[in-house]
């Protein structure tokens, strides 16, 4: 099976490298030529456009910034649909709105291309270690076909449902991680302002029902005051925006997501957008008299 990869940024580059390590014949394209260099050095072929990638591949993965980019790569001029052979499976691994994923999937279906939405969780570290969690929406047969390729990038690969279901799952992931990061920051601020050692609070709570990976990992980084990303606050802001836009479209009440999104707005607006989203702790400290 020949594999293509479009979008070679912080996430896409290590993901594509892991596909190469899996022994696949890989063709890549990125908007900037210098992004392609490390892949070409590792043995991938370069192409001049997404259409050219599609023409020589059975599966094309993409990892880009937003829905407009995915649409451009899939359906734009010299996009995947322009070059695709019959039966091509396009796997978009970017995080975009479920409604946008469904719309692009429908546009591709009209042109004979099957799309899977397959956003990931696990960040740059997960991308490098091939330890991503991959949540997939779309056709079951197409999923079985590409599963071995996804297996090169992640340990946990799950088909959730039809088109858009992967993005819905990713949005759920962002609700839970976003709200929990903010909750841990609130709890630590509350503890410290009450004169109690937040490190001891964390240690005590790890054994109980409030245990979570975020309390354990993000909590430790808060105690270390290590605000390096990780997952940047502006990216979490973007993802929470997808959640709130969907809530608006569907008429859903999401009060905690709504409040969390405002915390990320405040981080972005006060120059902390490039820090990890745990910088919420610093914001709460300032707003509590520090």
């Amino acid at each position, binding site marked *: 099976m020949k594999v293509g990869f479009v979008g070679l940024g912080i996430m896409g580059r290590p993901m594509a490298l892991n596909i190469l390590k899996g022994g696949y014949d890989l063709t890549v394209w990125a908007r900037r030529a210098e992004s392609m260099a490390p892949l070409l050095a590792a043995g991938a072929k370069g192409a001049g456009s997404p259409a050219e990638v599609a023409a020589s591949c059975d599966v094309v993965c993409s990892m880009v910034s937003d829905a407009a980019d995915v649409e451009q790569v899939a359906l734009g001029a010299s996009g995947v649909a322009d070059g695709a052979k019959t039966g091509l499976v396009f796997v978009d691994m970017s995080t975009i709105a479920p409604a946008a994923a469904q719309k692009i999937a429908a546009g591709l279906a009209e042109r004979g291309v099957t799309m899977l939405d397959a956003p990931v969780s696990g960040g740059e570290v997960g991308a490098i270690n091939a330890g991503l969690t991959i949540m997939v929406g779309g056709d079951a047969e197409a999923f079985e076909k590409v599963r071995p390729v996804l297996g090169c990038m992640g340990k946990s690969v799950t088909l959730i449902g039809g088109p858009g279901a992967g993005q819905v799952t990713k949005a759920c992931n962002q609700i839970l991680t976003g709200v929990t990061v903010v909750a841990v920051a609130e709890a630590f601020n509350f503890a410290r302002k009450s004169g109690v050692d937040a490190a001891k609070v964390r240690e005590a709570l790890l054994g109980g029902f409030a245990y979570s990976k975020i309390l354990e990992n993000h909590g430790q980084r808060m105690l270390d005051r290590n605000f390096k990303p990780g997952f940047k606050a502006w990216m979490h*802001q973007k993802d929470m*925006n997808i959640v*709130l*836009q969907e*809530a*608006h479209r*569907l*008429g*859903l*009440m*999401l*009060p905690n997501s*709504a*409040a969390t*999104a*405002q*915390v990320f*707005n*405040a*981080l*972005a*607006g*006060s120059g902390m*957008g490039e820090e990890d989203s745990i910088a919420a702790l610093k914001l709460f400290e300032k707003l509590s008299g520090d």
Partner: protein
Amino acid sequence: MRVGFVGLGLMGLPMAGHLIAAGHEVAVWARRPASAAAIVEAGAALCATPAELAARSEVVISIITTSVDVEQLALGPGGLIEGFAPGGIHVDMSTIAPGTARQLAARYAERGVGWLDAPVSGGEIGAREATLAIMAGGAATVLERVRPLFACLGRTVVHVGEAGAGQVAKACNQMLMVNVIQACAEALRLAGAHGLDAGKVVEALAGGSAGSRVLDVMGGRMARRDFIAGIQARLHHKDFAILMEEARQVGAPLPVAVHTWQQLNALMGLGGGRLDTSSLLRVLESPLEKLS
């Protein structure tokens, strides 16, 4: 003045009527020509396309629903931009995204056509009585040319700033107003839960520091249990998507507004989108009950 008018809804129809009454030569275009029947009877000419309307008008005023509608009207096939002579002016009085307003202003500027975003506050009553508050974004010279038209439509005209500024002001207006509607709903929910007569509470508060126009009008509707629009909640719901997107772009936390937005989402989810926004009270009273 030769004036074009697009958008003959609850707001637009009386506004176009005022322009005719003031002696302006009004022509209209409507997506459904039937909706123009009343204004044509009142003396307006009917055009077949927006381009045709723009070609015969010095100024075209639009008041329609969404950013996409306005974009389509201006730039779509047979759109206004195809018909305007240099020096023409498009005054958009719809409530749309500031970003869309800025983009349209730039596109028109390339052709020497003027732009104003001039959204209004005051609702259907304000439109009927020509007492609207108009908040304008765009070049001052353009505003001066259309001031005589605004004088037929509203009582106050404030030049807020460059293109898009009118829409930002309108977003602030909507946020302030609906946040206060939600606050009124919460106050009357608390009063109602204690068995108080909501009408008495509104009357008592109106005289004090919590008195406001929203309390008078929307609190009054809540007290009378008069939830028929009025202002359809779905329109305020639309406005919140715009203003929260603006807040996201500039990184401004809006902790109260974002919760008001969720209450509006709940109102939509309960099927109350076509009811008056005073129905936010009913989301608090009976969150388990469908409203339609």
